[in-house]
């Protein structure tokens, strides 16, 4: 019994990481209205930004959060300019290919600039743990969950309470109408994209701390997982994307627990496909633009 509880906790904490990535992903897709394959690279850049901040300045968590957020934000601007800006009226596969090309570009540049090898991530926080019902939970796991919850809350408040968040939502629902209402659609979209990227960057830093290592190619699998998680949540719904991430994490870990680790990614995908077949729009109702 303990064993399955333990696996459940593993799943939850891994799911929390997926959730964090998925929140960023859903924000991007929600406001831009296009699917992106650059998110993995955004995550990677965030992790490397924090890595260099830790190495050159101080091993301070807040410094890490700010640097990774800022670096990914900047990358978000570039992504917006390269992959989205001129393609809002184009068929959707075109920006999609652009993002695939861009992610290839960033990944290969990163291998050249950062070096292709795996590096140890400095640990800005002490790795302690607490025991809950006989299950050991690490500080970093708690930290991740706390950050996921607080970021979702902040995002929710910004989105629903501030003027600016309302603009963001308006743009994500109808770009033309928003433009008619005097909203600067281009700028709002770009900022929305940057927020999503920034969140991805923070997720990257946390991941790197959690796994204590970074690698230029770490983004590939992670980007895919964030994509899957947010699809499960209907792609644009932020809380549902977070829930989707957690569900994927739990599915993977319980799949490993009950069956075999060899098919780990299969569990996630089969679960996803089943959900999609039963509820074609993911676990939530459609909110905002349909990508």
């Amino acid at each position, binding site marked *: 019994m303990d064993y399955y509880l333990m696996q459940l906790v593993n799943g939850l904490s891994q799911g929390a990481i997926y959730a964090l990535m998925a929140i960023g992903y859903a924000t991007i897709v929600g406001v831009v209205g296009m699917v992106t394959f650059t998110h993995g690279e955004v995550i990677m850049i965030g992790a490397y930004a924090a890595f260099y901040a830790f190495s050159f300045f101080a091993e301070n968590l807040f410094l890490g959060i700010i640097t990774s957020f800022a670096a990914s934000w900047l990358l978000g601007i570039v992504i917006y300019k390269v992959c989205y800006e001129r393609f809002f009226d184009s068929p959707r596969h075109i920006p999609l*290919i652009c993002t695939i090309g861009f992610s290839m570009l960033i990944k290969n540049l990163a291998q050249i600039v950062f070096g292709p090898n795996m590096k140890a991530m400095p640990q800005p926080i002490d790795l302690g743990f607490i025991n809950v019902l006989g299950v050991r939970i690490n500080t970093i796991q708690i930290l991740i969950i706390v950050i996921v919850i607080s970021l979702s809350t902040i995002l929710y408040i910004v989105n629903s309470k501030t003027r600016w968040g309302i603009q963001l939502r308006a743009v994500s629902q109808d770009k033309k109408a928003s433009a008619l209402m005097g909203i600067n659609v281009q700028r709002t979209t770009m900022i929305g994209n940057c927020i999503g990227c920034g969140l991805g960057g923070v997720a990257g830093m946390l991941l790197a701390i959690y796994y204590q290592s970074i690698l230029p190619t770490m983004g590939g699998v992670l980007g895919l997982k964030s994509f899957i998680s947010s699809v499960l949540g209907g792609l644009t719904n932020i809380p549902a994307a977070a829930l989707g991430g957690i569900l994927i994490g739990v599915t993977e870990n319980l799949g490993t627990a009950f069956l075999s680790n060899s098919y780990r990614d299969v569990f996630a995908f089969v679960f996803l496909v089943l959900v999609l077949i039963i509820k074609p*729009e993911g676990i939530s109702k459609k909110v905002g633009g349909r990508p």
Partner: protein
Amino acid sequence: MISNTFENVKKIYKKHAKIINIVLIILLLIIPRLMPNSYLMGIVCRILMYATLAGSLNIINGYSGQFNIGHAGFFLIGAYTEAILATTYGWSFWPAMIIAGIVTSIVGFLVSLPTLRLRGIYLAIVTLGFSEIIRIIALNWTDVTGGPMGIKGIPSPELFGFRISGPVDYYYIFLIVGILFLFITNRILKSRVGRSWISIREDELAAKSLGVEANRAKSANFMYGAFWAGIVGATYAPYYKFIASDMFTLDEGFNILAMVIIGGQGTLIGPFVGASIATLISEVFRFASQYRMVIYAILIIVMMWWRPQGLVGAYDSILAGDDKSLKKRKKSITQKVGDN
């Protein structure tokens, strides 16, 4: 500019169709004699292989407007089916190839079932998931697929007692597969079946209101595309004589997709151009060493900026978007459509 060139080429071609056809066929047949260099022939073979593979993806993405990004999965099934039949059961290449195509097309049918309910990016993610699921199964089902050890020693095909191996011989197989693909696909596209696919791509609701059974047509379309992916996979396996699951990753699927889109969706010629460009770029920039893929990636992006509908993509399609400057050109181009 490019499109003008193509239009001109087409015009010239139409004028002297017969002579050009004959010259072309002779040229195609003697290319290996003109280029006895097997490195270049190897690249030509790779281009031809990818061209047909991208073409088969184009059937799905370009002609029925569905969105498949996991084409590597179909490719894998074709390759493994042929390899298993040829090594474990000692089948000869030709029947194994057909069976590979059929098996892949059955799998294509199964994958298409969710299309009854899903569309757009949701369908895309199902195909992506399918591609990974298939790959992981191939990696783990050791008894049948050799698991991580892959399948080695896949025998070369034989034709009238000749063993076909090496790119110079194989060129003809890839060429025949490619030409057959174009020939058959062209016929289908110009029939009721092809028209129904295109009508679904352009406006599914309207197509339905005209009695086109969208779901059946989409399934058939998926099966047909998958069939050719299986055939190409089956020719791929004995060409390299060794296959393993790491040859069919998602990146490979993205690669095929990029070829289709660079070349242009919705035209038969597009994927061929895309496959050629993509393969050649990655070979020509070999001198750039570690910057090679950086250049490749930049070129993909530049291509999308410069010609989003692909180098020779269809103007006369919803896939080209709503670009006003394109619309003008559409008019002149569509004059040709009436006479087919």
